[in-house]
């Protein structure tokens, strides 16, 4: 809530997402592989929700459903009370891989969303703003292959933010970065989220990352994923990794993931 108090006056509030009794499965050569089982989750506007679960449990599938890239086998997903029919630039995804187009410069990659929506002429100034927001000033003319992993992920973040998303979907965005870059980008992401007022949905398998960044932690079981626990993280920002409150929650999350004996 501190975050919302600090935020600049906003044009559009964050998006409310309502996931109700969602089941999903994949068909693999005639075999049905269930991935999500009766997932129900209500996300309030402006929340920062972290989804935590064992690798391959179906968290990313849930994100694809929320993004509108796939449709659930049963159950409903609503954004601001309206069912999600397909992808929409108000719900933008940042994937684990930056997936920048190698034939476009950083500037042109960031411009992608505006170009796709035909807003390039009227919103051109936003491209430079987004690039400096993620700290890539001076790299607008660089090609993706000239960037380091962290810089490429920053560019991917700028490409998402330029569209003024109301829901930012982060699918392990820091998963492939070195730990130093990851730690500094965690703080930057939180600062970005505090400054604007989009809702954030983060998939991660880093417990500490989830506790450091989110206002709410949702723990999933192994495949098929069902919600095991929904924990509010009532701590103001900036947070400290050594905070005993967070350490306590970390212990609890590890218990939920069946890793208590390593504590």
């Amino acid at each position, binding site marked *: 809530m501190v975050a919302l108090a600090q935020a600049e006056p906003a044009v559009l509030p964050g998006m409310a997402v309502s996931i109700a009794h969602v089941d999903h499965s994949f068909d693999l050569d005639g075999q049905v592989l269930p991935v999500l089982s009766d997932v129900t989750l209500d996300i309030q506007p402006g929340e920062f929700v972290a989804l935590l679960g064992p690798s391959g449990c179906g968290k990313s599938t849930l994100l694809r459903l929320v*993004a*509108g*890239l796939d449709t659930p086998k049963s159950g409903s997903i609503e954004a601001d009370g309206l069912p999600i029919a*397909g*992808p*929409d*630039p108000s*719900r*933008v*995804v940042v*994937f684990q*891989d930056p*997936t920048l*187009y*190698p*034939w*476009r*410069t950083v500037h042109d990659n960031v411009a*992608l*969303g505006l*170009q*796709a*929506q035909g807003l390039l002429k009227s919103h051109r100034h936003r491209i430079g703003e987004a690039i400096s927001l993620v700290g890539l000033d001076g790299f607008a003319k660089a*090609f993706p*292959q*000239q960037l380091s992993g962290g810089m490429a992920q920053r560019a991917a973040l700028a*490409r998402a933010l330029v*569209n003024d998303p109301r829901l930012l979907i982060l699918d392990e965005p820091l998963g492939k970065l070195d730990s130093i870059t990851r730690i500094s980008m965690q703080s930057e992401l939180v600062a970005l989220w505090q400054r604007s007022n989009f809702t954030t949905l983060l998939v991660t398998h880093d417990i500490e990352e989830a506790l450091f960044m989110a206002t709410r932690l949702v723990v999933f079981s192994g495949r098929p994923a069902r919600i095991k626990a929904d924990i509010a993280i009532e701590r103001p920002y900036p947070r400290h990794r050594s905070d005993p409150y967070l350490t306590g929650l970390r212990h609890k999350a590890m218990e939920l993931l069946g890793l208590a004996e390593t504590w």
Partner: protein
Amino acid sequence: MAWLPVAFFLFPSSWSASVFLIALATGIPVAILTWSGVSSVPSSYYDIARTLGGSQRFLVLRVAIPAALPHVFVGLFMGLTSAFVVLVVAEMMGVKAGLGWYLQWAQGWAAYGNMYAALLVMAVVCSSLVTLLFKVRNHLLSWQKGLVRW
């Protein structure tokens, strides 16, 4: 090459037969490599464009085509060289015009000076066409600089 006799039999003039042979020789590598280029575009490229509001048309023009272009150029290079080979062979075998035919004819008259001159012209034409294609490629795929060298 195997199509030569069939083509000369099926087509009314040796001109149209050689057009057919060249189309065959260039069309196949270009088509196959364009196809493989388009199908090798990672699906995540499309996911990105879709979440950012890209239409079907946008996905084709702004994602599939630029992503497949490096493969298309490989096909074009293969097509260009095989077009040359087929043309010259066709001229040597049936077509009554062109450098390949002239080469054969000059050789028949033991006019070796003329023969080597024809050979030289052929080499110059072929290499300048390849150079031209390289120029076009370097212009369109300038982003590949430092990424791929061939």
